[in-house]
């Protein structure tokens, strides 16, 4: 698998000379992305897993919350592909529902992170000066907390539960978005065409919407992809120690927590959710790397 083309394969030359409109940037980006085979494969896997997870209620054979205790902790069989858990529930079915919850939680958490980070990053990057310094100091402070400890502290004060866990994860990853967006906005601000728009008297909000936003879409996409992976792991960690999703619901992380408590009697129980987390996060990372490598030189900083 080649996940390192950033060094061996020189990035396709950015369309020098042509006006860097949003559309031109995007077309070149898509063309370069299609050449990243590993990233395209990762995207396909993610689409497949997402479909399987979202559509779980319509195709899995068992009730994720119901089972008979007489079947408890049975190993894998034709009827139960990954066996059953301590309450006799089908592990494969629960895994699909768990993936559904994990993916949903990660998407919402990243949404929260973006809702905080995107506007602040835009303001900091475009306004510059004192506003920028103030926002960035807050950013630095938030980034001084170990992410998981800040998340646990927030959950500690808000109370355990999935919603609060998603808010907490959103807050801890907001600085990443702030940084990426700020950097991209600062670079775009210096471009001649933005300067021209400013000279012609275009108001700041229109410049940001028409010129800055389209140009930071690509780095934003990379950050979203990588952050989704982090968010999945963060949610899994919180749920693993019992601070995230509460029973009877389960995410991949809380399933691993249950599996850990039965590690002695039923080690197979951990395989399904463990492998699922790994594949999802690995795919998101490979996709993110591929997206980053597809960015032209000028869009990179």
């Amino acid at each position, binding site marked *: 698998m080649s996940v390192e083309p950033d060094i061996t394969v020189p990035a396709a030359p950015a369309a020098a000379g042509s006006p860097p409109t949003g559309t031109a940037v995007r077309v070149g980006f898509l063309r370069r992305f299609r050449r990243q085979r590993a990233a395209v494969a990762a995207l396909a896997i993610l689409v497949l897993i997402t479909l399987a997870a979202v559509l779980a209620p319509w195709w899995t054979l068992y009730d994720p919350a119901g089972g008979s205790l007489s079947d408890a902790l049975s190993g894998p069989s034709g009827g139960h592909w990954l066996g059953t858990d301590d309450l006799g529930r089908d592990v494969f079915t629960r895994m699909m529902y768990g993936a559904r919850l994990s993916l949903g939680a990660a998407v919402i958490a990243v949404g929260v992170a973006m809702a905080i980070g995107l506007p602040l990053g835009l303001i900091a990057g475009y306004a510059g000066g004192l506003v920028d310094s103030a926002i960035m100091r807050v950013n630095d402070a938030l980034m*001084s*907390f170990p992410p*998981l400890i*800040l998340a646990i502290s927030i959950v500690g004060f808000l109370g355990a539960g999935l919603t609060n866990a998603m808010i907490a994860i959103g807050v801890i990853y907001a600085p990443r978005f702030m940084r990426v967006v700020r950097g991209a906005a600062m670079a775009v601000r210096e471009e001649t065409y933005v300067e021209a728009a400013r000279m012609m008297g275009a108001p700041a909000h229109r410049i940001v919407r028409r010129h800055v936003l389209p140009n930071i879409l690509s780095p934003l996409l990379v950050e979203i992809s990588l952050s989704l992976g982090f968010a999945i792991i963060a949610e899994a960690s919180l749920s693993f120690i019992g601070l995230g999703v509460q029973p009877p619901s389960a995410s991949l992380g809380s399933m691993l927590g249950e599996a*850990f408590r039965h590690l002695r009697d039923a*080690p197979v129980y951990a395989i399904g959710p463990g492998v699922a987390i790994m594949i999802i*996060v690995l795919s998101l990372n490979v996709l993110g790397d591929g997206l980053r490598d597809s960015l032209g030189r000028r869009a990179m900083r």
Partner: protein
Amino acid sequence: MLRLLARRLLMSVPILVIVTFVVFFLLEIAPGDPARLAAGGQAASAADVAEARHRLGLDEPLWTRYWHFIEGLFTGDLGQSIFSGQPVLSAIAERAPVSLSLMAGALIVAMLIALPAGIIAATRPGGIADRVVMLISAGGVAMPNFLIGLLLVLVFALNLQIFPATGYVPFEQSPARWFQSLVLPSVALGVAAAAEIARFLRASMLDVLDQDYIRTARAKGIGVRGVVGKHAMKNAFAPVLTVLGLQVRILLGGTVVIEQIFNLPGLGSLTVKAVFDRDYPIIQGVAISAALVVVVANILVDVAYGYLNPKLRAA
């Protein structure tokens, strides 16, 4: 060098002020009335609640309370555990050695794996060793540390029974068993860091090995080992330091989960217990100490960076 250190220390002041404010402000987002909680919950009379509010200073404005909070920090008074009444500072001091040993162990594991892996991968880019290293490190980055911990417990503690599955033995009691009790947790925590560091070291080593001065050294007849060890390493390691600094944050957070798995009495298990007990002062104390560790680690990284790259000292 001293100027760099002074400048970095000065830069940390506003960050620490905001950090303390964030932690102080956490109390404001908690649902429910802390005064009622302190007065004994729902059953408390209005007079008791009012008395508790005054005693805790909760009837004062936000900024006054923040100021008292800062004053407390400077005198080492982080409040007391609501649950046990133990001063927060002493609870943290009691648990910190466990978490710090775990972190140090994880960093050692990470470097022991990442240094050879990154260098081998970089000296033959595209070769079999490189592909294997890159593949494993991609998996290592994607694997949550508790999954690795779970596998380690399963294989080495339950099946092979080489290491204890859980528990902690203080160093003073038995250094050998202290070491044993930390091996599996350190590996579980360090693998992801190793993967991340190996990827960075490989990339930065590739950049450096491509430079003219390396080609000159090679042309003068110095072997690959000599070039890597004497000429390339110092320059290739500088970017890796940044990753190392970032890893301190991740590792510190990771100790929480790993301590749960291996039942280690560190800061992580203190925090998780405090969350379940709603023991707010403990959570605040841990959050501030953790941020402080990260800020200090970042300063150390920057100073080491200045040592490796003299150009940065003046800047």
